């Protein structure tokens, strides 16, 4: 009897330790907010949902981990097939891998993302295999990638908790952090023939005090998605929102409340 009580007490204590508040279940399909590495609030953190362009964080991670960002990349015909947000790249144009990465992270440009994935793959499908291998290595148990740039695919999904893992991994890289916080940037083809002036898709940059990044996403299947990171007085708050119709307002409200919450 005593043993049973002890087991029960241990189980309850374990449960309590893992219990996370879900004060805003109505704001998104899934969300998770962390402050300085501690989860404050989460709703459906393990639900499998479409990632939209948040998948580009994985593409960027693989590119940064591989290095050689100065390498020239000659774009193939695949860039013409990219839909959604594009910067207008043309087959045969040459850019550095680093500039393709910049356009992928800052502008969420699908043509740049596709060109980068095909360069790193070396085919699109081979790159997708790499994405899933890296996801598995990160312990992203509720994620499967089927497109390097996050286009809706039947077998592509991720979760808020997995995206936090991925975000925390990219945050370790200075290059990603540098790109994520760029409000505007200008790129050139290697021959200097064309210039691309890009504005970051993250509306929090320049508007929200302490905003750093990290990635935006939107597709019809995924809805509005966002991985928001902000830092104030040395305190960092990371918020992941999947399918959040009011992602910007939600992000501002969540970040404000997270900064003010009791420690």
């Amino acid at each position: 009897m005593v043993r049973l009580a002890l087991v029960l007490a241990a189980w309850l204590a374990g449960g309590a330790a893992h219990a996370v508040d879900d004060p805003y279940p109505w704001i998104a399909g899934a969300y998770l907010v962390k402050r300085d590495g501690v989860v404050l609030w989460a709703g459906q953190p393990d639900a499998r949902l479409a990632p939209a362009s948040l998948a580009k964080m994985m593409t960027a991670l693989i590119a940064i981990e591989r290095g050689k960002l100065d390498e020239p990349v000659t774009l193939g015909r695949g860039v013409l097939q990219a839909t959604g947000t594009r910067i207008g790249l043309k087959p045969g144009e040459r850019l550095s891998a680093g500039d393709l990465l910049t356009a992928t992270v800052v502008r969420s440009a699908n043509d740049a993302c596709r060109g980068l994935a095909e360069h790193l793959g070396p085919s699109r499908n081979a790159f997708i295999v790499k994405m899933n291998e890296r996801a598995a290595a990160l312990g992203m148990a509720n994620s499967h990638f089927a497109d390097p740039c996050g286009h809706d695919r039947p077998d592509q999904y991720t979760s808020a908790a997995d995206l936090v893992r991925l975000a925390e991994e990219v945050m370790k890289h200075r290059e990603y952090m540098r790109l994520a916080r760029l409000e505007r940037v200008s790129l050139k083809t290697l021959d200097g023939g064309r210039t691309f002036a890009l504005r970051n898709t993250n509306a929090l940059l320049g508007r929200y005090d302490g905003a750093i990044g990290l990635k935006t996403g939107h597709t019809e299947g995924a809805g509005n998605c966002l991985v928001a990171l902000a830092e104030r007085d040395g305190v960092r708050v990371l918020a992941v929102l999947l399918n959040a119709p009011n992602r910007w307002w939600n992000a501002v409200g969540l970040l404000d409340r997270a900064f003010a919450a009791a420690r």
Partner: protein
Amino acid sequence: MRMRFFATLLVALPFAAVAQGSGELWEITMSMPGMPAGMMPAQRVCQGDDPERAAQAQKGKDKKDCKVTDRKQSGNRTIISMSCSDGSTMVIDQQFNAARTEFKSTMSLKSKKDGDMTMTQTGRKIGACDAVATRKERDAHMDKINKDMAAMQAAGAAEQKKFADRQIKECADAAAKMDWRGFGTYGQCYNNKADANCKTQIDSLNKMSPEIGKSCNARVAEYCKRYQTQEGFLKAKADENAAQMCGVTTASVKAAQCPKAAQTESLAFLGRYCLAEAKPIAQQNCVGRDYTSKMGGKYNDFCTAYLAQASLEKPPASAADQVKQGVSKGMDKLKGLFGR
């Protein structure tokens, strides 16, 4: 303190006891119960006629706080009893050998302040010396030691003052910036003074400088008073930790201030913390505003704050259902595609 006192005696006693002959070099070893051997190495002391030293010693005798209350001499043995102004008493029992080439001395001090102490000295004459030159050398050495000690004490005091000034400034800055973290221990312990850890920390800071506690506690009080105003609450960004420090809740501050903010149309406060009171103003001025749209004017900040906070509120049932239904449909679609 004790060591310094005995060190003085070590130099003074043989001279006082011998006070005759010129230029005798003595090697003196001192020991105390509990003191490891070798902690006080043997010292060489030159004893002898030195008019200046004699004059100094006389001056010292006139000024000193201890008086000889009894003196017994029998052959080569001298027993001196002393009484000091702080209530302590001392008995010095010194005995020379017949040739006056060796001595042994025991000093017993009874003091309420420092407790009881016993020190033993042994000495042996090892040759001749120049008493005047040795005294000058020793005086110069002592001067240097005294100066070094004074400098060290001054440096220590300056460091403590610097630390206290810095702490006081940090508290002042924390109050001015409404950043509770700057109060450090004084913030954590403001409403927690009975806590053992707090007590220890505050006591040690007070020992260093009571001014720190006085100033920082006053600043925390000032902060807490301001925190409960609209201006202070806004500046502190409604921080829950600050509320805890001040022994209030953010809800209680909002409850007290929202009606006042509504009366005075304090938009900054209303937009952030008083959704119910702000709603009529928002309905008139914020409808259709997008986070990315260019805004301006009087209601810009109000609308941004209001819409962000309102976006987290539970929407009317129908709207909430729509979001959930949309998510659910998406999930079903995915599940269907996976065949589960």
